[in-house]
C-alpha cells in the first residue's frame, strides 16, 4: 500500500519538477557539484595517500636506512683547491653496527655509482649498486630470472652482475639477458640474474631526503645494476671527481653511500634507530649522514593524508551544504507559490502528512537526481586527473555510498522544513491566497 502510494507521489513530484525544468535543473546543479567534488576530492586524496604509502612501504617498514650526506660546511668551499675530501659512511660503521646491535637481522652496505652501461652498440644511464648477497632481504623486489649475487661472487670479486627489468627493457630488447656481457667503463660483467625494478630514486624522492651526491642530478628513474661490493671497490675505487658548477672540480672519497639495517620486528625499529644514532654520533665528527626510518615516514604520511582528506572533505561538504541550502530555498519558494494548491488539496481530504510526503518526495527526487549525476561527474573528474594530471586516484565504494547517502540526507534535511511549512498552513487561508 505504501509503495503503491509512493509511486503515485513520485509521479506527482516528477510532474511538477518537469513543469519547472530550468529551475529544477539549476537547483540540482548545486547538488551535482557538491557530490562530485566530494567524490573527486576523496578519490584524489585516497590516490595520493595510497601512492605515498606504497612508495614508503617499498623501502621496508623494518628497515632503517642510513645514507651518506655531503656535510654542509664543506659545500660552500667551492672547487679551486683539489684537496681530497673524505666523508660519509665507512666499512667500519657497518662493522660497528654488526657488533654492537644485537637484534639486527641483516646489515646491507651499498656503494651507489651513476654510470653508463653498454651492451653491443646500445647505451643506457644506470646506477651501479655495489652490494652484498643478502641485499634481497631488505627489498620486496623479487628475482625474476637466474640468481642474485652469492658469497662466492663476493669472495672472488667476480665480474658478474644482476640487472633489473628496466635495464633489460632498455638494453636487451628481445635478447635473453642471462649470460650476456654488459660493459661498464672498460670492463665487462656477465649477467647472472634479473630482478624486479624497485625505483629506488622515486622512493628516495618521496622521502624528501636522499641527498646523496650520487643520487643528485641523476634522472631519478634509472635502472640498477647490482654488482658484488668487493668487485665495485676493486674496479671503481672510492674516489670520485665532482664537477661543481662551471668553475671547478673537487675530489671526494666516500666508502659507502648507504647502509640499510633490518631489524627482526617493527617494534624494534625505533629503539634500534636511537642506538644507531648514538653510535654514528660518536664516530662521525662531521654531520655527513642521514638516518631514514620508513616506518616513521609511513606513520607521518598516514597522518598527513588523513588531515589532507579531512580538509578536502570539508571543502566538499561545504559545497554540498550550499547546494542543500539552494534546494531548501527553491522548495520554500515552490511552497509559497503553490499555497493555493495546498489549500485545495487539504480541502479535498489531504492530511498533513500527505502534503509533507508530496514536497519531501519532490526534494528527494531533486537531490537524488543530483546525487546520481554528481556521482557520474565525480567519477569522471578523477579519471581525467589520472589521465592528464598523471596523478593516481582511487574511488572507493565507501565514497560513492557516502556521496549517495549525503545527497539523500540533504534531501530529507533541507526538504523537511519547507514540507512542514506547507503542511501546517491553514487550509482556509491557503484557499484565499493570491
Amino acid at each position: 500500500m505504501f509503495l503503491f502510494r509512493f509511486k503515485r507521489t513520485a509521479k506527482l513530484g516528477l510532474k511538477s519538477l518537469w513543469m519547472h525544468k530550468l529551475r529544477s535543473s539549476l537547483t540540482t546543479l548545486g547538488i551535482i557539484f557538491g557530490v562530485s567534488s566530494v567524490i573527486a576530492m576523496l578519490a584524489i586524496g585516497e590516490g595520493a595517500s595510497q601512492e605515498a604509502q606504497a612508495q614508503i612501504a617499498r623501502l621496508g617498514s623494518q628497515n632503517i636506512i642510513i645514507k651518506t650526506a655531503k656535510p654542509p660546511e664543506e659545500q660552500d668551499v667551492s672547487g679551486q683547491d683539489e684537496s681530497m675530501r673524505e666523508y660519509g659512511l665507512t666499512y667500519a660503521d657497518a662493522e660497528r653496527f654488526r657488533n654492537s646491535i644485537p637484534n639486527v637481522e641483516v646489515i646491507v652496505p651499498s656503494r651507489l655509482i651513476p654510470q653508463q652501461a653498454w651492451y653491443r652498440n646500445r647505451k643506457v644511464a644506470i646506477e651501479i649498486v655495489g652490494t652484498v648477497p643478502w641485499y634481497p632481504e631488505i627489498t620486496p623486489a623479487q628475482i625474476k630470472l637466474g640468481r642474485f649475487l652469492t658469497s662466492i661472487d663476493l669472495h672472488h670479486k667476480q665480474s658478474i652482475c644482476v640487472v633489473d627489468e628496466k635495464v633489460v627493457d632498455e638494453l636487451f630488447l628481445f635478447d635473453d639477458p642471462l649470460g650476456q656481457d654488459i660493459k661498464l667503463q672498460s670492463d665487462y660483467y656477465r649477467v647472472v640474474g634479473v630482478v624486479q625494478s624497485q625505483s629506488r630514486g622515486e622512493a628516495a624522492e618521496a622521502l624528501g631526503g636522499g641527498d646523496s651526491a650520487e643520487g643528485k642530478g641523476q634522472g631519478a628513474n634509472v635502472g640498477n645494476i647490482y654488482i658484488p661490493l668487493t668487485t665495485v671497490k676493486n674496479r671503481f675505487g672510492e674516489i670520485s671527481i665532482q664537477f661543481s658548477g662551471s668553475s671547478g672540480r673537487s675530489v671526494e672519497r666516500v666508502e659507502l653511500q648507504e647502509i640499510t639495517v633490518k631489524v627482526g620486528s617493527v617494534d624494534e625499529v625505533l629503539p634500534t634507530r636511537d642506538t644507531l644514532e648514538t653510535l654514528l654520533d660518536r664516530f662521525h665528527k662531521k654531520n655527513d649522514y642521514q638516518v631514514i626510518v620508513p616506518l616513521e615516514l609511513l606513520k607521518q604520511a598516514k597522518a598527513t593524508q588523513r588531515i589532507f582528506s579531512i580538509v578536502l572533505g570539508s571543502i566538499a561538504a561545504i559545497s554540498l551544504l550550499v547546494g542543500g541550502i539552494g534546494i531548501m530555498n527553491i522548495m520554500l519558494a515552490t511552497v509559497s507559490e503553490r499555497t493555493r494548491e495546498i489549500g485545495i488539496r487539504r480541502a479535498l481530504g489531504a492530511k498533513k502528512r500527505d502534503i509533507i510526503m508530496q514536497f519531501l518526495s519532490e526534494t528527494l527526487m531533486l537531490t537524488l537526481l543530483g546525487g546520481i549525476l554528481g556521482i557520474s561527474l565525480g567519477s569522471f573528474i578523477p579519471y581525467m586527473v589520472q589521465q592528464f594530471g598523471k596523478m593516481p586516484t582511487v574511488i572507493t565504494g565507501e565514497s560513492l555510498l557516502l556521496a549517495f547517502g549525503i545527497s539523500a540526507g540533504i534531501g530529507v534535511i533541507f526538504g523537511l522544513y519547507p514540507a512542514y511549512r506547507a503542511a501546517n498552513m491553514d487550509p482556509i487561508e491557503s484557499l484565499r491566497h493570491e
Partner: protein
Amino acid sequence: MRDRDVDKTNKTNGQALRMDRLCKSYQLGSMELKVLRDIDLTINNGEYIAIMGPSGSGKSTLLNMIGCLDRPTSGDYWLGGENVALLEDDDLSLIRGARIGFVFQSFNLISQLNVVENIEVPMYYQGCSERESEQRAKKLADMVGLGDRLKHRPTELSGGQQQRVAIARSLANDPLIILADEPTGNLDSESGAEILKILDRLHNEGKTLIVVTHDPGIAKTAGRLVELFDGRIKRQPKSE
C-alpha cells in the same frame, strides 16, 4: 492505510448536521471580531439549503465550518453524530475527503493537472487504486458533459466548464453533503444556469446541498433559505 470506516449513513434520525450555539471569532490585536454568533442550525439529509446575506455577514465562514475546514470558537457542531470539536486534524481531513464535496466560487482546480487528474485528487487521498479512480473520474466527467475534454488543462476550459469539473470532483468520493460557495458568482448567466441545473439534479438524486448565494433565483429553487446578518441567522423558516 484505508480509512477508518467513515459512517456515511446517518444514525441520527435523518439529521445531516446540527449546530448548537456555535460561535466563531477572530482575535485582531486586542479586539475580538465575532464573525458567527450563537448559530443554531439543523440540516436534514437530502435538504437543499440556500444561505444568503450581505457581504461580510459570515456566510463563507459558516460554510467552511460546516465543511470542517474550520473549528468553532465555542458551541457544538455535530456532523452525522460526531462532535467535530473533538476530532483530530487527520480525522477532519478524512471527513472532508469522504463525506463532503466542495465547490468554490473561483473553481479552485489544480492548474498543472488535467480534467481527469483533477477529479481524481479526492480519490487519491482516500486511497483508491489508480485504475479505479481513473475510471470513476472519466465517468464523472462524462456526467457533467466533459467526456470530450478529459485531457484538457483548466486554462484550456471556459469558466462554466471549469465549474463543472469542480462539481465532478466534489462527487468523486460520493459524499453526502455538497457545499457550494457562490458557485455561479464568476459565471455568465447562461453557464450559471447550467451549473444550477446540475446542482438541482444532484439534489434530486438525494444529496444534501448547501449553497451560499446572492442569487434570489437559487434561493427560490432551494428548499430552505438561511439568511445571515452580521453573524446571526436572521430568519429561519421551520424546516419540514
